[in-house]
């Protein structure tokens, strides 16, 4: 999908000429009602009925103007989406605001295949809309455009626009599989994997990320209205693991990828150092969010062409 005008560079302020407006279903019904009233008023040559009809028709025009005005000048500040695991719903976070600080109510956002979500931006504040992303297959989910709209006030018209700020979201393979985690034999001979808890030293808290084990979450802090935090432990002695695609004893490629994804997630959660070997690719053992992402992205992209 390519657009003649080129892509939008955020932040972008919505201008007049990119806004479209049409009556909603309620608006169309209102129009039919107005036509009926007009015919009745004309037929009875009744001035009061005609004035009422004209008043409501003019009211509809004012509503159209108000609705248009509600989206005009809105600033799309950012679009972002965290990587997600295949089969689980993700979220596209849209930040909208008004540079002049005017209140904008009933702002809606949607992507293709998702329902609309709505939020208000009060005076001088921003609106944050979390658009659910449809569950996808592993790979890269491309969101070419986002539909911003509003029917506020009155719901008789909906004004909308497309924001073309293409976004790619990594869809990691779903972490599945029951095979035990292999040990990087040569370097760590004689040592067995062991649970993360227990002997490790507590090293601090960090924000929750997808794939973190619920057991690692600091629920007490969460109950005190803190964000979702995860307790991190540093291992006294770093364990090294190497997950080799060729060594997974599963027939199906997808199942192997899922198993590898699960190992990566678990090893990272335990704070272990792990590496990944795929046909044509080798990631040396390491740890940390970036490494985890590299590994999971490599799994996500496995076997798919570039850009797929």
């Amino acid at each position: 999908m390519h657009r003649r005008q080129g892509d939008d560079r955020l932040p972008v302020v919505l201008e007049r000429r990119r806004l479209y407006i049409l009556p909603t279903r309620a608006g169309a019904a209102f129009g039919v009602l107005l036509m009926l009233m007009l015919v009745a008023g004309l037929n009875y040559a009744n001035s009061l009925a005609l004035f009422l009809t004209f008043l409501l028709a003019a009211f509809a025009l004012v509503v159209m103007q108000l609705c248009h005005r509600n989206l005009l000048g809105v600033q799309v500040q950012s679009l972002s989406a965290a990587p997600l695991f295949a089969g689980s719903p993700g979220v596209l976070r849209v930040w909208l605001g008004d540079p002049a600080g005017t209140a904008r109510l009933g702002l809606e956002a949607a992507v293709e295949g998702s329902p609309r979500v709505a939020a208000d931006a009060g005076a001088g504040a921003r609106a944050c809309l979390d658009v659910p992303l449809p569950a996808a297959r592993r790979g890269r989910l491309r969101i070419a455009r986002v539909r911003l709209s509003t029917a506020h006030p009155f719901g008789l018209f909906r004004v909308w626009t497309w924001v073309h700020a293409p976004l790619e979201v990594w869809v990691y393979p779903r972490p599945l599989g029951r095979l035990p985690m292999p040990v990087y034999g040569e370097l760590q001979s004689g040592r067995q994997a062991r649970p993360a808890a227990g002997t490790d030293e507590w090293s601090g808290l960090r924000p929750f990320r997808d794939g973190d084990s619920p057991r690692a979450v600091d629920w007490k802090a969460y109950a005190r209205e803190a964000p979702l935090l995860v307790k991190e432990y540093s291992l006294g002695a770093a364990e090294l693991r190497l997950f080799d695609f060729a060594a997974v004893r599963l027939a199906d490629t997808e199942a192997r990828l899922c198993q590898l994804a699960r190992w990566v997630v678990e090893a990272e959660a335990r704070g272990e150092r792990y590496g990944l070997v795929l046909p044509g690719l080798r990631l040396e053992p390491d740890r940390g969010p970036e490494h985890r992402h590299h590994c999971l992205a490599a799994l996500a992209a496995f076997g798919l062409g570039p850009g797929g």
Partner: protein
Amino acid sequence: MSVPDTAAGADAGRGSPRPLLWACAALGGGVLLHADRVPAWAALLALGLLLWRVASARRGRWAPALALRALLALALVVLVLARFRTLNGLAAGTTLLILMAGLKLLETRTRRDYFVLVGTGLFLLLAACLDRQDLLRVPLYALEAWVCCAALAVIGAQGLAPRAALALAGRALLLAAPLAALLFVFFPRLPGSFWAIPRDQQAVTGLADSMSPGSILSLVTSYDTAFRVRFAAEVPPPQERYWRGPVLHEFDGHTWRRAPDAYRPRQALHFLGTAYRYHVWLEPSRQHWWLALDTPAHSPDLHAQLTYDYELLGSEPVAQGLAFVAVSYTHTAAAAPLAAGARREDTALPSGSNPRTAQLAASLRGRTASDAQLVQAALEYLRGGGFVYSLEPPPLGADAVDDFLFRTREGFCGHYASAFVVLMRAAGIPARVVTGYLGGEWNPVARFFVVRQSDAHAWAEVWLEGRGWTRVDPTAVVAPERLRRGILDLLPQGLSVSERMIRSSPWLAYLLQRWDAANDWWSERVLQFDYGAQLDLLARLGIRTPDARQLGWAFMLALLGWLALITWHVGRGGRAARPDALARAYARLCRKLARIAPPRAPHQGPLSLAAMVAAHRPELAPAVRALLERYAQLRYGPPQGAGQARAVAEFRRAVAQLALP
């Protein structure tokens, strides 16, 4: 869904009962506008369903099954049919609409249902406009329109606060009003109608085309306006302000009726004296009569016919009030003798009835030389016979005229006119009863006469050779004041208490006159603004032969002007929003800091401002920096949900306590 920086949407939850309540209010308003017009059971049923639905808005409720609802709908249709015999027509249609809307309440739960209810409310409002157009009701209609639009706002915005919804709808309606007025003036009207308008059977007070002894009485106790008159130049003297309605020829001993509808040529007349030119605004009467001063010279309008008796008979009942201009004379002379058939008809009496009246006629005939003298003698008889004007006369027997002339001697205009005409006919003089109105109240504010139903009157016309039909008012002989004053001044017991109060207080009477003037303006300028009035207005604007293109251009120009106006207004309204508490506290901090350091540049953020302050007043830097960092965190940091408001309040206090030496 999240509502980050403000709590604006905190109560706009999906489960809010507000949309339902507002939809019910919009519908209920529509039902109330018709409450006194539809059968009581229908209004009560609809209002009861409304209350039930509102009461069950919060808790779980019982909803009848589809089959039951269909059965109910069918039963209600049958009930309406049984009551009205038709579903066509305003009253039947409105009743049906109210009942069906009530049934709709049983299954109302989605947004679409709420929209349907509001639409029904608007349609009921339209029906009310078609039904009644009194100026007094207009505020009610405006209120209902406002409530309906506010309900749309609440439904559209998922539970907007009531005051915000009313303000929003009110603003939109005010902006819409100028365009509505433009459309009202320029939108092409129909010279006729698309389909025939079904007649309504509801009776409104007005002259009937028959008269029995008590029939006028139902009119004279009503203070309603019958019509208004403005004379172009000369005003006839009070004793000549007779407004002609139905002229009655046939008498069966009890009731007077109009002549049968055979075609008869109008009596040729010479018009004498002043030609009075005047404007009449008729109130709705659902009768065919167009009331005109004594003898109209010609028919004022294609839709009215000047009859044999010089009545103005409209082709349609006056359903919505109308206006016409006429020219009348109060003195005429016949240009041709009375046709033999007409003479026979106007001297006919039921045979054998009222023998004593016949004796009186014979004795009068014996005493006088001419018809004119006989008329005078008969009037003398009434004047000297101890007759009393009364609105509560005793009942009359079989020979009603005999009974009245020789026993009771008490009655009002109907009795006197009837007795006088019978007496004339018994003496062989052609005579007829004319019903209509006498007089009218001068309104000095609006400079017109108001003729009320209480001015209803009946008088006689006799044929005098050489003069033709001559008006004789026997009531004026008995109660001469009746010519100058309304019947209700003569007989105040006919008035209600409030009407007596109005009449006894000059300023109340003045207010009433103002109100009449307003009604007149309303009736003339708004209600009567039809195809003809539109052509007149366009002609005054210089468009003699309006064609669609010219009108289209004029209208488009006006529309563009209006659009520019509302675009400007809506845009301006949008900018005027008040900054939130955090922005106000920050502005205050910036003003304080401007006293110790150069003012903040528009592009400068809080942290850069902190650095600048630190450069100027290093000793104050820690406190200032802490505050500015706090602001940056509150404004740009991650949202803090419920704690946000508290944090902003703390920040505001800290700004207030900041002392800058």
